[in-house]
C-alpha cells in the first residue's frame, strides 16, 4: 500500500519538478523559486547531518557557503572551467571544516555553538580584509591577480555567458541533482553505521564512547561532510548569480537560515530539513511580497519576517521540539481520531 502511494504521489511530483523549466509557470518564476528551494534544501539537509544527527549546533555554516562560492569564483577567474571548481569548492570547505572543527568540536553543547558564532564572524572579517593583508605581505603577493584575490568588500564578479536563460535552466537541473545527492547522502548516513554513531553521540556522548564510538572522529567527519555539501551549494550559488561579496555569502543571516530551516522542519530527521527549507522559501516569497490591510493600518508583511522566524523558533522550542514534522504528527493523530469517530458515528446510525 505504502509503496504504491509513494509511486502515485512521488512520480507526478518528480515529473512536475523536472518539467518546471518547460512549463513557464508563473512566467518561469517557479523555476527560480525551485532553484532556490533545491539549494536551500541541500544546505538545510547538510546542516542537519551535523546539527540534527550529531546534535552539534553550528552557527558558523556560512563559512563553508562563502568559501565554496569564493573558491569557484577565484578559480574560474583564473581560467579553470567552472564545473571543475565545484568539487574543489566542496573539498576546500571540507578542509576548512577540519581546520576549525578539530579544536571546536571538543567543546560541548552551547560552548560549541558560541565558538561557531565567533568562527563565522572572524572568517567574514578575514575574507573582507584578505586582499589588504596579502598586499602587505611580500611572500603571499603572488596570489594576487591584478591586485585582487577575494576582491575584498567589492566581492567578485563572474563573466556572464551569452545565453543566460539556458544556463539557468541547466543549473536548475544541476542543483536538483545536488539536492537528490544530498538527500541520498543524508539517507545513507541516517540508516547506516555512520548515522547510528552520530545519533549515539547526540543522545549521550559518554555512553557512545564506552560502546566504542570514536566520538571526536565521527563529529569531525560529520562536520566535514556537512561542509562539503554546503561548499558545493555556495559554489553553485556563485555560478548562478555571477556575483558574490563577503557580507552576503559569509554573513550571519546565512548561518541563521541554515540553523532555522532544519529546526522549523524537524531537526534530526530526513524529511524535516526539506520541509523546513520549503517552508522557509515559501514564507520568504509570500511574506516579502504581500501586504496586509487592517483597515487604517497597512502593514507590509515583509517587516515581519524576523518575527515569524523568531516566533516559530520560540514556539518550537517551547511546545514542539520536532518542528513541522511534529505538528504534522499531532495533526495526523487528531485527523485519524476524527475519522474514527465519524466512522463510529455512521456505524451507529
Amino acid at each position: 500500500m505504502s509503496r504504491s502511494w509513494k509511486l502515485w504521489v512521488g512520480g507526478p511530483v518528480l515529473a512536475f519538478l523536472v518539467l518546471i523549466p518547460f512549463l513557464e509557470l508563473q512566467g518561469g518564476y517557479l523555476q527560480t523559486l525551485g532553484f532556490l528551494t533545491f539549494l536551500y534544501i541541500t544546505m538545510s539537509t547538510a546542516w542537519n547531518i551535523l546539527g540534527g544527527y550529531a546534535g552539534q549546533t553550528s552557527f558558523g555554516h556560512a563559512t563553508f557557503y562563502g568559501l565554496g562560492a569564493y573558491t569557484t569564483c577565484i578559480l574560474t577567474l583564473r581560467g579553470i572551467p567552472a564545473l571543475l571548481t565545484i568539487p574543489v569548492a566542496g573539498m576546500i570547505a571540507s578542509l576548512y571544516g577540519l581546520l576549525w572543527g578539530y579544536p571546536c568540536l571538543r567543546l560541548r553543547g552551547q560552548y560549541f555553538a558560541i565558538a561557531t558564532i565567533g568562527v563565522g564572524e572572524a572568517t567574514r572579517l578575514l575574507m573582507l580584509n584578505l586582499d589588504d593583508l596579502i598586499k602587505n605581505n611580500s611572500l603571499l603577493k603572488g596570489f594576487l591577480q591584478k591586485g585582487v584575490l577575494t576582491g575584498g568588500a567589492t566581492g567578485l564578479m563572474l563573466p556572464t555567458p551569452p545565453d543566460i536563460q539556458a544556463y539557468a535552466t541547466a543549473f536548475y537541473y544541476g542543483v536538483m541533482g545536488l539536492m537528490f545527492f544530498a538527500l541520498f547522502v543524508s539517507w545513507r548516513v541516517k540508516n547506516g553505521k555512520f548515522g547510528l554513531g552520530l545519533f549515539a553521540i547526540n543522545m549521550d556522548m559518554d555512553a557512545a564512547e564506552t560502546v566504542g564510538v570514536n566520538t571526536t572522529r565521527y563529529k569531525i567527519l560529520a562536520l566535514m561532510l556537512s561542509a562539503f555539501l554546503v561548499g558545493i551549494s555556495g559554489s553553485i550559488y556563485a555560478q548562478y548569480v555571477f556575483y558574490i561579496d563577503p557580507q552576503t555569502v559569509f554573513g550571519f543571516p546565512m548561518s541563521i537560515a541554515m540553523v532555522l530551516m532544519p529546526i522549523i522542519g524537524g531537526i534530526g530527521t530526513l524529511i524535516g530539513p526539506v520541509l523546513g527549507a520549503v517552508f522557509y522559501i515559501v514564507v520568504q516569497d509570500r511574506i516579502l511580497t504581500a501586504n496586509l490591510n487592517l483597515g487604517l493600518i497597512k502593514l507590509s508583511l515583509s517587516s515581519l519576517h524576523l518575527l515569524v522566524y523568531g516566533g516559530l523558533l520560540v514556539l518550537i522550542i517551547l511546545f514542539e521540539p520536532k518542528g513541522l514534522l511534529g505538528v504534522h504528527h499531532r495533526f495526523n493523530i487528531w485527523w485519524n481520531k476524527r475519522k474514527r469517530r465519524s466512522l463510529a458515528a455512521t456505524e451507529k446510525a
Partner: protein
Amino acid sequence: MIKLNKFFPSIFLFVLLSMIIPETGFAQGPKEIILGAALPLTGGQSREGGYVNKAYAMAIKEINEAGGIMVKEYGKRIPIKLIIYDDKSDNTTSVQLYEKLVTEDKVNVLMGGYGTPLITAHTIVAEKYRVPYVNGGGATGAIYQRGMKYIFCIISSIEKLSFTLMDWIAIQQNAGKVKRPLKIALVGENTSHGKEFRQGVLEKSKAAPDRFSVVMDEPFELNMKDADPLLQKVKAANADVFLADARLADYTTIHRRYTEMGLYHLIVSYGPRGPEKAARDALGPASDYIVSCNWWNKDIPTPATKAFADKYQKTYNEQAEWFAATAYEAFRVMVKAIEDAGTLDKPKIRDALAKMDMRNSLVVGGRVWFEPNGQINNDHLIMQNMPGGKVALIHPKDVATAEAIIPIPKKR
C-alpha cells in the same frame, strides 16, 4: 520509512496555505505599465531604501495625475503601476525578488534599489531577461564595467566623486588657501564604496605627487564600535587633510571621537556624508566646516531642484536627501525613455535610454545622458557645512552659493 499517505493531510494544508497568501498581494490590472523594484525596506540599508520608496511613490503619483505615460504605439496615455518588494537588504532575496518581478509579475521595466551589493546582484537578472533597469543608488563604477547592456545609472561613480573632491582641493591649492604638497590621511569603510573612494584618491595623488602625498590609507569595518584605534593611526600619521568615506553611523561615530580626541586638519571630508540632518543633530557644532562631495542637494539653484525639494517637503514633511532626489530622477528618466521609445518593447526602451539626453534635470549640470557603459558621468557637488546648521554649495562654480571656508578655522 516515510509513508506519503500519512503526509497527505499536511501537504494538502500546506499547499492551501501557500496559495491563499498571494491573494493578498498585488492583482494585475489591465492596461497598465508595470514597473518593479525590490528595495531594502528592512535590514541594514532600510533607511536609504525608505527614501527611495518615498521618492518613487511621489513620482508615480505625479505621473498618474497627469494621466500616465504617453505611448505612441497605442496612441494614448497609460497609467503606471509600481510593484515594490522588500529584499531585507539581502542579496539572495533581492535576486529572487527581481526574478519574480520579471517572470511572475511581468513588469515592463525595472527600477533600481539602493546599495552597491544589492544593485550588483540585480543587474544580472535585468541583463538575463533583457529588461531595462535604471537606478539612482548604486554608484560604484565596477558594476557598469561588465559590458551589460540593459543597466543604467544616473549617478556618477564614486571614483569620480573622489576625483571631483581632489580636483577641488587642487583648486584651493592654486588659490593659495592650503599649502602644496598636502599630506593626506585616507580612510574608507570596508565596502566597495569605500574601496573605490580610496582608489580614486590614491590615483589622483599618484598622478600629482607635487600636490598630494597619501601618508595613511586604511579601511575600517562597517558599523564600528570603537573608532579609537583608527583615529590613533590618523593622529600618528600627522597629515594635513583627513579624507574619509563612511556611512552615516560610522561618520557619526568617527567624527565624535575625532572631536573628543581634539584632532585637527586643514580640510576634513567624509566623502558623500556631511550635511545629513541626523548627523548634524548628533554632532552639533563639531560637524561645522566638514566638506562633503555628493550627487545632489536641495539648495542647487535650479527650478527643477526647487520644485522637487518643495514638493517632497510638502508631501512627507521632511527635507529631501540625495537618495530621494536621485531615485526620483531615475524614475523620471525611465518614464522619459518609455515615452521616447513610444512602445513597451524592451530593447527599444533600452535604446531610448542609451540615447537619452534629458535636460532640466535635478542632477548637477542639469543634464542626464549615459556613457556607453550605462553610467552617467557628470560632476559631483561639493558642499561645506556652515555654522548654525547651514550648508553651503561650494563647487562647481555654476551652482555654488557661497565661498568655501578653507582651511577650517581652529577652535579656541
